[in-house]
């Protein structure tokens, strides 16, 4: 008889590592000053390490500590990170502490990421959507160590993640149930938590942080910066898409275009008699520009991926709308948010930096490898979807007996970006970036096949109605303004596309351009939003222009 195989090697390795550090760990608690030694003792060379940090919440204390470890002890880590947001996230590659990265989003560090890939300092596994990266934590990127952030912990080691729960549960679970090590930085140690978000049983080490984790108010848009062009586009979208397709559930991207839509619902939407008829259900971060629509009764429910700084009191006072615990704070489990955004929505409305002549779009431009975040989950047609809604069904092709509906995926862009460069291009910069960064796939945010509508200041292209790529291109050209793509547009073809409802200009939608003024916005500035919230919204200092 052969020797019995040891089936618990991971568990034993974990126990050995933790017992070697037992002098520094009391229960589950380690001292702030021992953080570096803890990481050096618990992270082995070559380990797969998840460092928590998305586009809002960052485990800053642990990321700074990781950047300070001795590269002779800890090196060649395989980092798994939703967002490359902070300088030290990349410093660890220059120091040799880490060598490989799998990630989703690199907004603030996108230029440096491009350079480091070109230099060979940073080896990229792949670029993911958020949900896709979480999924791989359970299949082929199972972590050895996870470094996460909690708001509060109690003496037993239970965690409270509160408003900004975001990714913490999905990351912790992948390690806790596969003998990975869970290390938590905590803003505060308290006797009693408002509620338990993650049980102590899943947590190995807690280190009180020297300062609270970094939190970005990413989804706050000052109405003062919304332009008349954006208002015109928003009016067209409301009439030509929300109303036309009877849209009930939606995700909005972070830009000013969708902020304009949010602020037109209580005014323009009301004039059109659409209240109670469109978009009662939302998967979206608690963006302050939704306050007027909520207060005037447009919104029944909002599930969120994350919190938003300043919205805490307002959310606590509106539990019928938001997903809040008994304690009054929102849970914001991001994995569930992404899942809901992918499968349960009628529509995604976003913006992008470039759209090619075929309708593919990307935010990756020359020298900036920005990644995807969650947009491709929301902005794609989930082919596994089986339930039907009126909006989804309205896109069903009529010539296929097995045909099914489609999610509405809407791109809203001005034909020229704020940098005065054309948004519509023959070929995406992403094609070149792929070569430079040696990626397997061109980093496309939303593919043409998933894009059902494009809205510009000129009009709407109903791409789902086109029957060939040539027709799709002609529809895009018709609304692409004086970009190189738009200049190819043939007036006779545009006339035909308008007659067939494939392209619509404002006058075709009954939208009056002269109504597109800032006075149509339900709130003109941040102070108006505070008033709408009855004083419950508390904008961050950088958004305050009054005392």
């Amino acid at each position, binding site marked *: 008889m052969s020797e019995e195989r040891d089936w618990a090697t991971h568990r034993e390795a974990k126990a050995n590592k933790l017992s070697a550090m037992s002098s520094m760990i009391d229960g589950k608690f380690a001292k702030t000053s021992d953080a570096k030694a803890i990481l050096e003792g618990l992270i082995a060379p070559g380990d797969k390490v998840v460092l928590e940090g998305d586009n809002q919440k960052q485990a800053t204390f642990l990321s700074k500590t990781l950047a300070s470890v001795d590269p002779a002890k800890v090196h060649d880590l395989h980092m798994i990170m939703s967002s490359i947001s902070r300088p030290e996230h990349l410093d660890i590659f220059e120091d040799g502490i880490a060598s490989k990265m799998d990630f989703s989003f690199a907004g603030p560090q996108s230029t440096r990421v491009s350079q480091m890939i070109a230099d060979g300092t940073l080896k990229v596994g792949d670029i993911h959507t958020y949900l896709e990266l979480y999924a791989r934590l359970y299949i082929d990127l199972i972590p050895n160590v996870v470094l996460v952030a909690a708001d509060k912990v109690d003496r037993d080691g239970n965690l409270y993640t509160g408003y900004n729960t975001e990714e913490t549960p999905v990351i912790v679970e992948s390690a806790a149930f596969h003998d990975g090590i869970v290390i938590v930085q905590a803003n505060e140690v308290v006797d009693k938590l408002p509620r338990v978000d993650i049980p102590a049983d899943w947590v190995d080490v807690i280190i009180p942080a020297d300062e609270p984790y970094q939190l970005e108010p990413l989804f706050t848009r000052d109405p003062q910066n919304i*332009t*008349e*062009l954006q208002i*015109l586009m928003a009016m067209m979208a409301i009439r030509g898409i929300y109303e036309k397709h009877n849209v009930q559930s939606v995700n909005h991207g972070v830009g000013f275009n969708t902020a304009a839509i949010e602020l037109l619902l209580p005014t323009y939407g009301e004039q059109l008699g659409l209240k109670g008829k469109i978009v009662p259900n939302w998967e979206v971060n608690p963006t302050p520009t939704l306050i007027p629509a909520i207060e005037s009764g447009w919104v029944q429910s909002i599930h969120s991926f994350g919190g938003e700084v300043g919205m805490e009191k307002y959310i606590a006072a509106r539990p019928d709308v938001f997903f809040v615990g008994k304690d009054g704070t929102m849970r914001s489990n991001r994995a569930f948010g992404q899942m809901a955004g992918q499968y349960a929505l009628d529509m995604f409305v976003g913006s992008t930096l470039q759209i090619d002549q075929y309708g593919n779009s990307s935010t990756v431009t020359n020298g900036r490898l920005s990644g995807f975040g969650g947009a491709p989950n929301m902005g794609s047609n989930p082919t596994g979807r089986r339930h039907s809604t009126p909006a989804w069904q309205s896109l069903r092709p009529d010539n296929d007996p097995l045909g099914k509906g489609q999610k509405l995926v809407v791109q809203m862009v*001005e*034909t*020229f970006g704020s940098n*005065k460069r054309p948004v519509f291009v023959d070929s995406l910069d992403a094609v070149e970036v792929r070569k430079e960064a040696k990626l397997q796939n061109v980093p496309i945010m939303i593919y043409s096949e998933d894009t059902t509508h494009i809205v*510009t*200041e*000129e009009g709407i292209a109903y791409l789902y109605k086109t029957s060939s790529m040539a027709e799709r291109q002609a529809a895009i050209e018709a609304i692409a*303004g*004086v970009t190189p793509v*738009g*200049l190819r*547009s043939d*007036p006779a073809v*545009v006339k035909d596309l308008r007659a067939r409802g494939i392209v619509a*200009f*404002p*006058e075709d939608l009954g939208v*009056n*351009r*002269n109504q*597109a003024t800032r006075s149509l916005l339900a709130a003109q500035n941040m102070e108006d939003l505070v008033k709408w919230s009855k004083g419950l919204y508390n904008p961050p200092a950088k958004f305050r222009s009054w005392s």
Partner: protein
Amino acid sequence: MEKLHFNYAATQPIEHPIHIGVVASGDLEVIMKPTDKKESELNIVTGSDGFKEVWQNVLNRFFDRYPLLADFEINDFGATPGVVNLRLTQAMEALKDEQ
């Protein structure tokens, strides 16, 4: 500052003068007046030099779609092509509403 001049064949004469927009940063004003001429004549003063081709492209597209016959005076302070098109089409719409 640059002065530009264009002529366009047009078929829809306007009956009243109209004024849309303001000369503010990123914006422009468009003044249209009825004319006896056979072509629309445009006199443009722009704060951004070197954009003659872009102006021509915007105007080609506008007159393809809305062949208004008028004298145009345009005073621009760095508007994007999208804003130029917005002001031109707003003027077109305001004239149509008057009719």
